[in-house]
């Protein structure tokens, strides 16, 4: 038995640590920014409205037909095809994107995970509608974290909808187990201590006229320019895609790359992307990375180069052909 004092010491060392919150950090950064560059008397602020509407519309006309959908955090998942709904007038404010909840899909109970060598998140999903639901008609948002806001999660994934055991559409009244295997390694495994959440949304509806309810995500005040895409690895095995963008902080506050997410969208067979959640789009999600020696904080007006590393499963060839588009969202 340990000495009493030793046990006291161990108890002290095991005391929980109050986390240093992002909101506190930002309060301080803002205060420091104000000290370093005094606020002008008119307090003008650049409006974010109009920025992303124009950006996405410049991608071109809606891609009719088939496509791929899904994504990862630092991992994988891809594929499938579904008809594209007809485009209607956008009603989502241009500084937000809209997500339409898939009301016909009910997550039964709490999602759970198996934290084995390949940690996998599971959720039991029931089709409560009267129609079969194809996995491409919906997309899933999975995150690990204590917050109900996916954008505040430790990891964020946009992936497929559920399927039956035979990979076919989920029939009315049927229940299936949706799952997603995370590619987390080393120190990042600590994120598995956070509760998993899974929600489903209707694909191809963002920016379209749609009835409530709608979940909106804020766009980060960032513009971007595609620089390059490099594919390495074995086309028959795991491929790695590095996509480089130049991004500019168009807001009035410093932005850390850890405070926003990039949704990197690959079109299907070079069809133009109409919207980020089109069924024909493959979406990867992660915080951007910067090179060594580059600050992770982007000052207002500053432009820096960032990159994403995506892992792509074997048998996927489009990554070498398709030019991606990126949008940035923030809590």
């Amino acid at each position, binding site marked *: 038995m340990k000495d009493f004092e030793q046990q006291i010491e161990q108890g002290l060392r095991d005391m929980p640590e109050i986390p240093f919150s992002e909101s506190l950090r930002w309060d301080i950064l803002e205060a420091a920014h104000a000290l370093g560059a005094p606020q002008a008397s008119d307090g003008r602020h650049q409006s974010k409205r109009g920025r992303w509407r124009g950006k996405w519309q410049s991608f071109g006309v809606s891609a009719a037909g088939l496509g791929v959908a899904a994504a990862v955090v630092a991992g994988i998942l891809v594929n499938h095809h579904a008809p594209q709904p007809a485009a209607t007038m956008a009603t989502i404010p241009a500084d937000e994107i809209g997500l339409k909840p898939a009301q016909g899909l009910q997550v039964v109970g709490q999602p759970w995970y198996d934290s084995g060598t390949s940690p996998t998140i599971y959720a039991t999903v029931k089709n409560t509608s009267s129609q079969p639901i194809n996995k491409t008609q919906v997309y899933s948002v999975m995150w690990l974290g204590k917050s109900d806001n996916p954008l505040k999660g430790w990891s964020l994934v946009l992936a497929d909808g559920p399927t039956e055991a035979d990979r076919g559409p989920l029939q009315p009244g049927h229940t299936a187990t949706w799952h997603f295997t995370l590619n987390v390694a080393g120190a990042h495994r600590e994120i598995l201590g956070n509760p998993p959440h899974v929600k489903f949304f209707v694909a191809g509806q963002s920016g379209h006229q749609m009835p409530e309810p709608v979940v909106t995500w804020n766009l980060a005040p960032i513009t971007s320019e595609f620089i390059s895409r490099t594919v390495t690895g074995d086309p028959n095995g795991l491929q790695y895609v590095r996509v480089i963008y130049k991004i500019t902080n168009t807001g009035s506050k410093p932005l850390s790359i850890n405070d926003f997410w990039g949704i990197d969208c690959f079109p299907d067979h070079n069809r133009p992307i109409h919207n980020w959640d089109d069924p024909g789009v493959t979406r990867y999600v992660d915080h951007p990375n910067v090179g060594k020696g580059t600050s992770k*904080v982007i*000052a207002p007006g500053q432009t820096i180069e960032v990159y994403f590393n995506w892992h792509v499963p074997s048998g996927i060839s489009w990554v070498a052909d398709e030019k991606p588009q990126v949008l940035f969202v923030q809590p």
Partner: protein
Amino acid sequence: MRGLLASDGRQPMNQFQQQNIEQLDEWMRHYGADVLNVAYSYVRNYAQAQDIVQDVFLRAFTKMDTFRGQSSVRTWLLSITANRSKDLLRSWTAKHVTVEEQVELGETGDTPEKTVVDRLEHSELWEAVSQLPVKYREVVVLFYLRELSGQEIAEILGATEQNIRTRLHRARGMLKEILTQRGWTHEGL
């Protein structure tokens, strides 16, 4: 580094200012939790601890050019933290906001910060640490909770290493006495 163009009507920051902001952010990422937890150990009030943290980092930001690197950034920041916390403990404010703090925390929802604060405040060991006089409590927190060496603690508190060792020894004895009086046993821990 590229030039900066402020778009909100502020004066553009120069390169030096921008570098300092980036440096500040790095310090917060590395030492924010140290500063927050040490501040909280002094004042046991989360809102006040946050105020101290803000004060510490803004002081460090404005005095960045005076930091010569004789000590580590961590000990420098914690030295400011200890001094600011003791200033606040001596002030009128610290003696008059405890009840407000409880109300405020109760209304903030289940944040990770609140969860940990709740856990701490329900820990009998933490309660025992909190009963120690400040001069003993601070060495216990810095040594065990922040895992600093005797030499680092001596730098932070402006004392000799021998003095810190003595305080730590006495603090352990006091903790043992407090916990024993409460009926704690080996198994209780």
